[in-house]
């Protein structure tokens, strides 16, 4: 499958491992181009060995742990070599009413939950955790990795009530999280790339009281976007990073800035919809 600029190949030798692997980049487009990165899971008696291009083999171990190794290697290898005119950023991207919103914040701040809530309402996304940014165009585009949802998120969003998750394509339960393809949340999941209309900052320390969406410092929002840049500062992608940071600042120079506070992802999603339609 194509995760530009790479072509990732996942292989395995049994059905259970195959289902697990298919959940990782389930929504990524397939391609006939030759693979640039190869990952595999091979198992015997319920124990698996995971292989990646960049590390020694891992295992034998449980399918969950072997899969987690592949998941981490696959994303690490892509992040560290984003291509000549790209960097990856730790952010979610959602189009609401045609307007692209960047959701930025540290891990655990609620980006995935909010993105999943908006996607399940039919608002297309670029991703929930990682986006691709092209400094020369100032545009963000999709990184089609599956969402990682926990039990609480599934309950709050009332996803698949009464269904067996085994029946939902592109899902895999690993290490306490359900990996869910965005296709499973909304068939027309993929947003058009573009420049952001707004930046929504999520801070874990502001979860008190009723949900609110406040105006925020545009400069501080730009700083958060710069801080979200991913990948190694040395190696094949390092050259692009010098221009990328400035490009990130410029990409949000005209964007409105908001900050989320309070509790309640559904109420927050309501506020985001209202702001994007104002």
């Amino acid at each position, binding site marked *: 499958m194509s995760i530009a600029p790479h072509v990732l190949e996942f292989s395995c030798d049994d059905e259970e491992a195959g289902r697990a692997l298919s959940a990782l980049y389930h929504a990524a487009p397939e391609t006939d181009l030759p693979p640039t990165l190869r990952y595999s899971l091979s198992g015997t008696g319920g124990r698996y060995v995971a292989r990646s291009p960049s590390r020694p083999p891992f295992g034998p171990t449980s399918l969950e742990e072997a899969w987690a190794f592949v998941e981490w290697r696959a994303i690490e290898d892509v992040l560290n070599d984003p291509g000549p005119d790209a960097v990856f950023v730790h952010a979610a991207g959602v189009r609401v009413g045609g307007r692209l919103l960047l959701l930025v914040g540290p891990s655990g701040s609620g980006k995935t939950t909010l993105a999943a809530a908006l996607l399940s309402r039919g608002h297309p996304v670029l991703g929930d955790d990682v986006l691709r940014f092209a400094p020369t165009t100032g545009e963000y585009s999709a990184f089609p990795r599956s969402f990682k949802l926990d039990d609480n998120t599934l309950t709050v969003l009332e996803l698949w009530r009464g269904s067996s998750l085994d029946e939902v394509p592109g899902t895999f339960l690993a290490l306490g999280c359900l990996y869910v393809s965005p296709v499973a949340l909304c068939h027309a999941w993929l947003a058009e790339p573009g420049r952001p209309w707004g930046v929504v900052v999520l801070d874990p320390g502001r979860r008190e009281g009723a949900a609110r969406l406040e105006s925020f410092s*545009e*400069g501080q*929002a730009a700083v958060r976007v*710069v801080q979200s840049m991913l990948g190694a*500062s040395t190696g094949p992608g390092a050259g692009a*990073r010098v221009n990328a940071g*400035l490009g990130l600042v*410029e990409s949000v*120079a005209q964007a409105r*800035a908001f900050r989320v506070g309070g509790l309640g992802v559904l109420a927050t999603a309501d506020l985001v919809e209202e702001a994007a339609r104002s």
Partner: protein
Amino acid sequence: MHERAAPPRPLARADVALRRVGSEWVLFDAARERAHVLNQAAAAVWAFCDGTRDPGEIALAIAGSVTSPEPGAIARDVEDAVRRFAAEGLLQ
């Protein structure tokens, strides 16, 4: 704690870029991949950190473009801004 004096003739690093973001200004330090938010007054100070002016001369240069509630405040603000720039490693 001993506070450092502002550099005598501050010179901005060539690889630090100033950009307007909304109503604010952001300095991007490419070498450290860090960004700093400035208000309009600090952005004006930055623009005059060309290695030829001391903080007093910078204060005179920007006096026409910033409002100040009291005499001497601009000079103090310039000293503070230059010290901050130095502390963040933004000057040569």
